[in-house]
């Protein structure tokens, strides 16, 4: 268990090393980044081997940090954290493989990338709200630079919008948590202490505080109607950053909802539950329809992320054991699949054809020019539309079943979302890769497209392997997730009242 904090330290150390080495040699920076990411990923797997999922939230480090405020450097992990840590390791490794060709300031790029990863690991491990918040902010700052320096279309706008939304979200969270700290008379920021203190807050006040904290986190998870930053930001970001932003950083928001907002205020959550649920359903369907009419390849994927994150929020809102387990599974699944989709669109296609307009791509016989990319995209698209056999299916099925148990209408709405997801995914597969009729490649690119590199193939196979494995053996993750949800705090959430 003590291995897990090293994921954070290794990532930050790797960031420093990459920064130093990058000024001399791009190759050195790349290799340092890859080794760091693989090491982080290996640490999560090693820790998973000796992890006892039935033990609930297990302390790893717990030392005083800022004594006067009662802030402690408190790291802990349960099956939910572990699932997301494994996801982070995989996404980080794949992200670096897909940025192998970064030529512009590689040292800084990989340093920021690894710093972002370190922050994400930190959030998933924090059991002290203050520490969680610090790591959260550490993750937000590199995002901005990654997009603003290495981004593409409209990058300043995208970066600014994304960061403003993120900061606004975290400001809401901070305000809410400080309010809870003061109103509840807590003596520290530990999750357990705050949860206990939150019980002292009058119901009406807690309704407002919960709304602040939940909304703050949910904005980062792309909750409708505060999702607009996500497609814009993801489109503007360089490939590896979009993979990580959609794949992992959106999960930070959902994780915050699950780990902080819900356990602190189960009664207030019960009050807001219908609103959250309907917003989630609206997001699933609305974002799906928007994705259906996008003319930019990357925007389709951006909106599909919002739609899929809607399932996570729906699972949380339904608050039955199966729905919540499905929500965590969906976080993992979407992290892998969104990473794969962005990799194909941003790295394999855009960097070769220099266009993301579907109208241009339609004219190219891409399935013949880039057969590997076509196969990967078809696989990723099928996984994304929830085809059985891939990780999205057990996740969505669990969420649907869990939602049926309490709110059948939400389940029906979500099912409509599945149909829309099928429609927009097939459309984009069809138009992007198989658009040309084959007879006349009207707008064949004027230069031969460079072949798919080994690094790209390795990254794609890594992510496909993950989604297929979890699709066929969802137990591998559910065996971690389900016991974690049996802890008293989550049981209280599911009951909608204090223990």
């Amino acid at each position, binding site marked *: 268990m003590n291995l897990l904090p090293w994921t954070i330290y290794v990532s930050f150390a790797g960031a420093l090393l990459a920064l130093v080495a990058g000024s001399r040699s791009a190759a050195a920076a790349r290799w340092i980044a890859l080794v760091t990411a693989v090491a982080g990923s290996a640490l999560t797997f090693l820790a998973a081997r000796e992890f006892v999922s039935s033990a609930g939230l297990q302390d790893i480090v717990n030392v005083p940090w800022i004594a006067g405020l009662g802030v402690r450097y408190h790291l802990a992990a349960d099956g939910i954290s572990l699932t997301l840590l494994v996801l982070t390791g995989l996404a980080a490794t794949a992200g670096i493989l897909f940025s192998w060709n970064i030529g512009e300031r590689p040292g800084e790029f990989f340093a920021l990338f690894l710093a972002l990863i370190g922050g994400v690991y930190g959030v998933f491990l924090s059991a002290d709200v203050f520490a969680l918040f610090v790591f959260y902010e550490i993750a937000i700052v590199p995002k901005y630079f990654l997009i603003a320096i290495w981004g593409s279309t409209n990058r300043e706008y995208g970066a600014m919008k994304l960061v403003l939304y993120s900061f606004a979200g975290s400001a809401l969270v901070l305000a809410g948590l400080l309010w809870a700290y003061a109103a509840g008379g807590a003596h520290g920021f530990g999750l357990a202490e705050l949860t206990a203190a939150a019980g002292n807050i009058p119901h009406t006040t807690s309704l407002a505080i919960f709304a602040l904290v939940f909304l703050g986190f949910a904005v980062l998870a792309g909750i409708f109607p505060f999702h607009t930053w996500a497609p814009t930001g993801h489109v503007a970001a360089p490939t590896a950053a979009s993979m990580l932003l959609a794949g992992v950083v959106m999960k930070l928001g959902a994780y915050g909802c699950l780990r902080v907002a819900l356990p602190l205020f189960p009664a207030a959550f019960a009050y807001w539950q219908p609103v959250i649920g309907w917003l989630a359903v609206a997001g699933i369907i609305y974002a799906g329809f928007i994705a259906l009419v996008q003319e930019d390849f990357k925007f389709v994927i951006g909106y599909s992320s919002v739609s899929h994150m809607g399932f996570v929020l729906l699972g949380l809102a339904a608050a039955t054991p199966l729905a919540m387990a499905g929500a965590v599974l969906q976080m993992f699944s979407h992290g892998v699949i969104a990473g794969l989709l962005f990799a194909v669109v941003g790295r394999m296609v855009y960097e070769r054809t220099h266009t993301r307009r579907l109208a241009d791509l339609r004219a190219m016989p891409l399935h013949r020019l880039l057969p590997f990319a076509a196969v990967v995209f*078809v696989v990723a698209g099928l996984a994304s539309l929830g*085809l059985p056999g891939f990780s999205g*299916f057990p996740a969505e099925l669990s969420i649907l079943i869990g939602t*049926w148990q309490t709110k*059948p209408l939400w389940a029906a709405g979500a099912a409509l979302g599945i*149909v829309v997801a099928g*429609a927009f995914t097939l459309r984009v597969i069809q138009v992007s890769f198989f658009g040309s009729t084959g007879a006349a490649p009207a707008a064949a690119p004027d230069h031969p497209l460079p072949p798919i590199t080994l690094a790209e193939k390795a990254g794609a196979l890594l992510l496909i392997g993950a989604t297929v494995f979890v699709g066929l053996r969802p137990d591998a993750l559910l065996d971690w997730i389900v016991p974690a949800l049996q802890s008293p705090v989550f049981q209280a959430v599911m009951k909608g009242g204090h223990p």
Partner: protein
Amino acid sequence: MNSLPLLSLLVFIPWAGALLLAVAGRSVSANTSRALALGFSLSTLALALVALGSFDPHAAGYQFTERHAWIGALNVNYSLGLDGLSLLLVLLTGIVSPLCLLASWRIERSPQLFGPLFLLLQGAALGVFLALDFFHWFIFWEVSLVPAFFLIKMWGGPGATRAAYQFVIYTLAGGACLLLGFAALYAATGTLDFTELAQLAARGEIGPKLATLGTFWPQVVFVGVFLGLAVKVPLFPFHTWLPPAYAEAPTGVSMFLTGVMSKMGVYGFLRILWPLFPAPLQAAAPCLLWLALGGVVLGAFAAMKQTDLKRMVAYSSINHLSYCLLALFAVAGATKPDAVTAALSGTLLQLFNHGLSAAALFACVGILEARSGGQRGLDDFGGVRTVTPLFAGFCGIAMFSSLGLPGLNGFVGEFLIFRGVFGLAPWAAGIACLGLLATALFLLTFWQRVFHGPVAAGVAAFRDLDRLEFLTLLPFIVLMFLLGVLPQIVISLFNPLVAAWAAHLP
């Protein structure tokens, strides 16, 4: 009872073959790839015959069962099993699939990709006929769409992209309804196992359990599952995807779609909808009978109006499959054991016979297309019989089998269906006769316009069947005669099963 996992092998040998051929890709020659695909495809027939050898039709329940724990958190098991109905359809798949590959032998565009996609489709269809847990079953049900989509789109005619898209979206929407229905069933009962659910239903517990979710949800869940299956069959009026998909697909794929995939929907009705929702089905049966009649009558009349031979055969498929559903709905709504047995036997027999005759007809249209350079209009031919007597003979036999001439296989199934439906819902049988009449009309028109009359301009140069085409059609023709004379070969497989179904009627 058998240490060899026979059913897993049935499903996974085609898939293993698909993987192997996909990996090999262009490193093997086109002919090697075709031959290997054919070999893997034949494995189904071989294994189905092995299963037939040790199958006991009189044993209750499933045979050759395989059951392993799979997903603990969802109570999902890897569960395969086989009864008379499954065996019938597995045999049909084993017979039709290799012949589809033979009919596709001359495809020159990426044959190394066609084979693996086809084997993927074949394995998925087999999985649907054998899986006994919804999670497991749904994987095959949905995965089958992927190869079908690409087979239609990449090797189909000029409108294939649109047709493939329409086909997949329709079926996906149906799949989402199914998924929603089963999510509700799990939420209410805690299991996705068909057998357990059927036992609950037999005790009348499913409805009340679903009602705990909300008062009108039992009906919604029934409608959801119904829609998912109805789109697949397809039942009128959910059939609009079918004519373009069948018409645009390449010949071998049309044969498989009509010969095997259309059976998946009817199988779903028999294996899932009827056992799980006997009471709602009984309540809905009077309305559903009208839908089935719509398919029987309008399908036949629509076929009569077609000038494209492939679309004509496609509409006739709607007509033939609607007979199966007509009988099933008549049975679900009534309680006369004698007529029920006839109707159900007819349904199962019709499934098998339609698989043979419709696939053979598509193969014949494909042969005409190959001769005429892609033309397949009703008026593009004339006098083909004098130029190619052997082909005309085979095609004629397939047509007469399709319209149910006594002595050929189609007759017995339709006779049993009519005999059953007359006993249960005489008025429906009366109306359905219109469909018989129209079928005879359009098939005879087909026969007369294409094979008789003066030899048309392009037709004089037609070759008669070559060895490959002969081999493709011969098994169909032999089976049509064989089953016309000795239908009990097939009936004996499922007779005890049908008797058991009839005995358990409410």
